[in-house]
């Protein structure tokens, strides 16, 4: 085992422990915990058997297994950033709605400007 593999495996182990710990503390639901366990187990197997990725890469017409991993990581990262953007946009909109509701709650028309049917 190369040193890089060793350190990566330790990192994966820490992440996996965190996921299981969070599950035990009931902060994480079962499907979520299963998902992350699978993700980290998968990562661990790729670290231990890097050649396995070359096999999949060849199937997809990509030269090296390492390239496949980089492409996939970039794709997943961009997707996650987009998801975060959508969430932030929703938060922004919700904050605006709260601020608007507070402002409109005090809507009254001064006596000297128009009659209207102020609420």
């Amino acid at each position, binding site marked *: 085992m190369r040193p890089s593999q060793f350190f990566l495996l330790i990192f994966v182990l820490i992440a996996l422990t965190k996921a299981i710990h969070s599950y035990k503390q009931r902060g994480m639901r079962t499907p979520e915990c299963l998902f992350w366990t699978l993700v980290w187990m998968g990562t661990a197997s790729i670290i231990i058997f890097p050649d396995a990725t070359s096999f999949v890469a060849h199937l997809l017409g990509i030269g090296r297994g390492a390239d496949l991993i980089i492409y996939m990581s970039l794709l997943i990262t961009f997707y996650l950033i987009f998801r975060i953007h959508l969430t932030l*946009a929703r938060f922004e909109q919700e904050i605006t709605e709260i601020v608007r509701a507070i402002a409109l709650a005090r809507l009254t*028309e001064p006596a000297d400007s128009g009659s209207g049917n102020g609420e």
Partner: protein
Amino acid sequence: MKFLRLETGGREERRSRGDKRVVIVIPAYNEERSITAVIRGLKQQGFARLIVVDDGSSDHTSERARQEGVILLRHILNRGLGGALGTGINAALRLGAELIVTFDADGQHDPNDVGRLLEPIENGKADIVIGSRMLDPIGMPYLRRLANWTANLVTYLLFQVWTTDSQSGLRAFSSQAAARMQILTSGMEVSSEIIAETVKNGLKCIEVPVKAIYTDYSLSKGQSFKVGLKTLMRLTLAKVRRLTL
């Protein structure tokens, strides 16, 4: 989009004092230097129902506006132009407005133009009227023209509507049109979004030339290059969001 040129020099009668059907929405963020003059200018034209939306200013915008006897709404946090316009238009509808005008607080618009903006709606020729500073761009600095033109191009690419001044803050809506528009963005990108909403809802929109008063102050309050880039990015993301939602 149809362009209608209403020449100046025609009848520009003052509105009968207190035209109750018209509500003017003035979004204001840190405009203590100009807000008083803007309010007085509009009142001189006979518009009595003014809503100032103080968008979380840290200066005395609210106090100045209150002294002038307007309907004052305060955002406890700064939400941006879109947020402030949304609040103001919502309030105007609640007050039973028939015609709603948006008017910038930085003093770049001429209160004389409001009447000409309302005419096409009153005559049933339009649902929304945008006051274009570009149909008669006298006095507009060249860099500003270029920036506006870029904004128009982006608006066209994203929403397939060509306007001569997509970033204009001077607009008039019929209440029916205002009620149908769904404003989702909070920042400066709202100007282009309003145009997109016009098309989506099949509303009749025309542009009329308006005067732009460029002072050092009003120029400093416009969109800087940096803010322009941010608007561009947010607008693109808003477009993606609309596609995915």
